[in-house]
């Protein structure tokens, strides 16, 4: 005979009465685990979709307008390429990707296309690592980051240009062509292109985006600068910034750093991401509050009823020499067991539901999140123990003689 034997036997003796409060905590944890699981992958999916919409911060020359940018950023004025280095070397939080561009109109096979110079990510990284500072030496911000999502979310290497506005590598004689260029001119991967007297090898054809990018031919930035004799200048810097940081004043900080440039936020993109994240967070919070209130109230109610029902038994134990601490532990242990089983069970069922119904309900792939088990058990045990505290204390303080009706 141990304390846990007493508690365990009592639970099984009156399991029907326990069922309601167990179900409250079990289903509550199930719901919140399922929501948290789906929410996590939904946020990732939304971030991924928003990435496809392009950059959310633009750094343009002072006189340029957003209209200039959307008409292929071919405004006359330029800004120094050094701005890119300045940003990448800064300690600004929330800069996920930087993409400097220099665009010029060119003729290709009798048609007018836009030749856009871009700088591959490897060149930023090399410089930043050489200098030992900057955005590439900081931990990943996580906003819009989709690298930890299962393989289905990983875009092909060259397509990162479409989604994340950067590509990792681009040789000086390589070119990427937009979907319209591919379709209209019949250019395919591996073909050669003659542009402004230089020959480029097509390393990839990009997927359709519905933007001006479809009419572009992308080559290395420094090659375009060299071909057009413009020097180390660019038309625009596209930035995929962390939406939370943008809300917290990232644009103002960039403005301060680059006073001779115009910094613009693509507000719809930012707002959508921020609103989505807020909505998901609010949904989780609402369910958290509901489970704390309903689960806690249900367990407390059950425990109070259980103490009342077991007054005679408590009095008998006291008559046999049980101190108040034994009675207190007896009820808290019961709460602990209730919380443990509810938490683990809720995690398992919640995860199964999320993985099974996530793809059907939200159209996303949902994977189990083992880290949630600690969270679920902690929450469940916490609620059960807090809800059991007062009833347990009341039991421990019972007047033993008042518990015997016949006396």
């Amino acid at each position, binding site marked *: *005979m*141990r*304390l846990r*034997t*007493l508690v365990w*036997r*009592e639970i*099984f*003796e*009156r399991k029907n009465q326990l069922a309601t409060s167990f179900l409250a905590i079990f289903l509550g944890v199930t719901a919140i685990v399922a929501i948290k699981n789906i929410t996590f992958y939904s946020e990732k999916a939304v971030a991924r979709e928003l990435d496809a919409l392009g950059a959310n911060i633009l750094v343009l020359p002072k006189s340029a307008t957003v209209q200039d940018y959307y008409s292929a950023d071919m405004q006359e004025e330029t800004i120094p390429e050094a701005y890119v280095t300045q940003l990448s070397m800064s300690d600004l939080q929330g800069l996920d990707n930087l993409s400097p561009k220099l665009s010029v109109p060119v003729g290709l096979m009798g048609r007018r296309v836009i030749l856009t110079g871009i700088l591959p990510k490897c060149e930023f990284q090399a410089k930043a690592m050489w200098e030992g500072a900057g955005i590439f030496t900081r931990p990943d911000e996580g906003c819009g980051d989709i690298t930890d999502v299962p393989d289905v979310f990983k875009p092909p290497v060259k397509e990162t240009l479409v989604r994340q506005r950067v590509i990792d590598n681009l040789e000086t004689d390589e070119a990427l062509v937009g979907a319209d260029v591919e379709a209209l001119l019949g250019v395919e991967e591996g073909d050669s292109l003659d542009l402004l007297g230089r020959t480029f090898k097509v390393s990839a054809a990009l997927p359709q985006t519905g933007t001006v990018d479809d009419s572009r031919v992308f080559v290395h930035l420094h090659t375009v600068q060299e071909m057009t004799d413009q020097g180390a200048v660019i038309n625009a810097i596209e930035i995929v910034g962390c939406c939370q940081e943008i809300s917290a004043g990232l644009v103002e900080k960039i403005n301060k750093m680059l006073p001779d440039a115009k910094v613009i936020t693509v507000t719809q993109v930012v707002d959508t991401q921020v609103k989505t994240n807020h909505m998901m967070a609010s949904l989780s919070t609402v369910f958290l509050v509901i489970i704390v209130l309903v689960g806690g109230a249900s367990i407390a109610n059950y425990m109070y009823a259980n103490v009342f029902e077991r007054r*005679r*038994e408590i*009095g*008998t*134990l*006291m*008559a*046999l*020499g*049980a*101190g*108040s*601490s*034994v009675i207190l532990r007896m009820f808290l242990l019961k709460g602990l067991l209730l919380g443990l089983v509810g938490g683990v069970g809720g995690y398992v069922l919640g995860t199964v539901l999320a993985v099974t119904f996530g793809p059907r309900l939200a159209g996303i792939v949902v994977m189990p999140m083992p880290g949630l088990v600690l969270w679920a058990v902690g929450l469940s045990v916490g609620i059960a123990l807090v809800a059991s505290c007062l009833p347990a204390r009341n039991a421990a303080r019972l007047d*033993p*003689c008042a518990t*015997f009706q*016949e*006396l």
Partner: protein
Amino acid sequence: MLRMEGVSKSYHHRTSPVTALRDANIEMNRGDYVSIVGPSGSGKSTLLLMLGGMLSPTGGRVYVDGRSLYDMTPNERAAFRKKNVGFVFQTFNLVPYLTAVENVQVPLFLAGTDEATQRDHASSLLGRVGLGDRLDHKPSELSVGQQQRVALARVLANDPGIILADEPTGNLDPETGRQVIEFFDELNKEGRTIVIVTHDPRAAERAKTTLRLVNGTVLNGKAESGRAEHA
């Protein structure tokens, strides 16, 4: 050994004051066998609970081996009961979801005895009360007489010097009641102090001393009828 000095107990029932016990002065020695008789509501059970450290008096003091019981903390009194006092109840008060042997193990568990010893000792006690073949029966699977015998085995688990019984034969048929009374005789012969509250004249007559209570007042503290008269 057990002494009450000017003990009284009163409480309020709704707005009316009720005196359950007034100015009780009692002295019992080790090995005494005392019955407490009186009409219902006369304060018998109140007195028994006070002797067991379960109910604090409004006035006066209760001494056990020279120690004032109600100057101890509640947990000290619980420890005192665990070591020295065994209670027998009219309705047995067995824990319904535990088997007979587990019920007897409860006081041993509270005393910190290891599990193997608990089981062995509890089994032998149940054997002593004739329930060696009912170890794993739950109270609901036992007759009332058998349940009272489990309760008696439980009382003996921690080998208490004082046994306090409240109407131990009240719910039993005459034959089973007689067996229980004989069991108390046996325990008294072992040197234990027995205090028994009863309406049963046969049980009262077996005691060496009978205390009569009327309206909360102890009418006599002297032996009225010795067992020798009935032997």
